[in-house]
């Protein structure tokens, strides 16, 4: 009888930990990470064998398809803005007071010299809709039990990755790691997120490091200095004609 109880307990616990489906995990974790909208201040340090530089910027995000980033530091580049609406992206250049649409051929180029590409910014939310999610187990990262969700692109999805493996903490679904694989199954990029703090109204990773596996001696680190969620941002904030103002 005791044995039965123990067995039942073990089974129940097993069910409990796998009670959430992969879809739910990804959707909830993504929602936690982005909120309905957010206003943030971040600093980004890019380190390469040849140079190291730090940029600071403010970001506004609304829904999953509107985002505006304005560089505030260094002085030389202050005012430079990147606007994303849907799958399109524009850069505003204050020096020449012009807006440039990023052509599809440039989407895989680096964003502001970092290890993030323009495509990474534009497609960041597509993990929910463009991929099939499979929960493959849990793994311990930084001493915390984490869900490991494998995301395989849907057949008709226009994405560059062959697979994304997403790790988020079992306790609060805070994402801690994303692995980006090519269509041939090679690990191409690795995003790690750590230094989890209580920001505004939730636990949030405040230190992100993006590495391109092929380029060993460089990386990009982003520190989230401040972030507010679910604030009211007018749609006009994301109008092309307003970004220079």
């Amino acid at each position, binding site marked *: 009888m005791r044995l039965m109880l123990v067995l039942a307990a073990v089974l129940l616990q097993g069910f409990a930990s796998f009670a959430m489906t992969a879809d739910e995990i990804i959707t909830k974790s993504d929602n936690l990470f982005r909120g309905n909208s957010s206003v943030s201040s971040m600093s980004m340090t890019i380190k*390469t064998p*040849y*140079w190291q*530089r730090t940029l600071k910027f403010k970001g506004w995000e609304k829904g999953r398809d509107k985002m505006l980033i304005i560089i505030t530091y260094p002085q030389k580049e202050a005012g430079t803005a990147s606007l994303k609406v849907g799958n399109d992206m524009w850069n505003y250049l204050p*020096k*020449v007071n*012009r807006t*440039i649409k990023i052509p599809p051929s440039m989407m895989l180029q*680096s964003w502001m010299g970092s290890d993030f590409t323009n495509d990474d910014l534009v497609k960041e939310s597509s993990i929910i809709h463009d991929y099939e999610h499979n929960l493959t187990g849990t793994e311990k990262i930084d001493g915390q039990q984490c869900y490991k969700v494998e995301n395989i692109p849907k057949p008709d999805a226009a994405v560059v990755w062959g697979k994304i493996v997403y790790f988020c903490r079992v306790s609060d679904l805070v994402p801690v790691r994303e692995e980006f694989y090519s269509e041939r199954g090679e690990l191409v990029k690795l995003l790690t997120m750590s230094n989890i703090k209580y920001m505004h109204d939730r636990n949030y990773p405040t230190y992100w490091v993006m590495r391109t596996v092929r380029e060993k001696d460089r990386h990009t680190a982003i520190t989230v200095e401040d972030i507010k969620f679910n604030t009211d941002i007018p749609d006009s904030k994301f109008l092309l004609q307003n970004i220079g103002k």
Partner: protein
Amino acid sequence: MFFSLAWRNIWRNRRRSAITISAICIGMAGIIFMIGMMNGFVVNMIENSVHLETGALQVHHRGYHDDPSVEKLIRNPSEVSDRVTALPRVNGVSLRIKSFGLVSTRRDSLGAMLVGIDPSSESVVTNLYKSVIAGSYGSIRSGNTVLLGKTLAQNLQVRLGDEIIILSQGADGSMGNDIYKVGGIFETASPDIDRMYIYMGLSDASELLSTYGGVNEIAVSLKDADAADSAKNAVINALGDEDELEVLTWKEVLPGVAQMVVFMQGAVFLFYLIVFGVAAFGISNTLIMSIFERVHELGVMMSIGTRPSRIFLQTAVESVMMGLIGSVIGSALGFLLSLNFILNGLDVSFWAKAKSFIAFSPVIYYRLVPWDFVLGIFFVVLVTALSSVYPALKASRLKPADAIRYV
């Protein structure tokens, strides 16, 4: 006596010898014509490739060639270029800053290769100055002015005098951008360059890409581009302690072109083999026939004391003579055939337009050097000598007693 016998033997059956000689002659003329074209092609290809963009040699920061990026800079370009220019076989050098950037108009944006050059020194290395079809090459001397490839200009829908914006990441990681005026449009032999390249002044590029006086590439023009390999060593020696730098020949920068050259030389050789392989059997056959004709006569010669070795030699000389006559006349004929193309060139514009990694001029000028004829004639003599071995052996092994009775 020896040669005159061989000579007369050739002409005892005029028709047969004439056919053999004309076969050699036509083969030779064909080969000379082909070699003229191949040579012209190879020279055209080398000249075009070298004068199109690369120069005969290139100096970079180590590792730039394998993975080009604007941060890999030669920090002391004037010192390096002074040392290279001082070498006697160097014509001149061109300093370049190169990076990938985004070019944008109000309508559209495209990726492009940005190249900063000093127009005067660039004109020593490449033919870019000849390729400008609208505007002027020198316009980039005045600041914030660029030269655009024809296809790039079409794709961006810009014309001479229009403004474009260029955005690119600099050597210090900062994002440079500025407005530039289209001062010229160029059309080269390379579709890729016409589609991808933008040239601007060296100081403009240094400003946009924050290189602070550094350059990515020093392209070297040699007095003789064929001697790139030995010149490379000379440049390496001249640079001595600059172990941060790498020196490459055009063959290393354009391995496709270098392979093509080797391939073409191989093709000429193959052509020789085929044409004269066939001719060899013809000559053998002629000689065997003529020996059957004069078995009696050879028997008489041997009976009065001619050594078999002499019979052998005489038959061989007969064959080589035919080869010589055929190949000399054939060379002359081949030269005459090629003459028009040596002077006026062969128009291959239908071909040059094809998308290709190798740049062609639309007109190929045939090229023949004395060496081509010497080699050709030598080859023919060799083949005719070889093909006479069997008939000559046959002749020298006749038994005088039997031969003399042969009718």
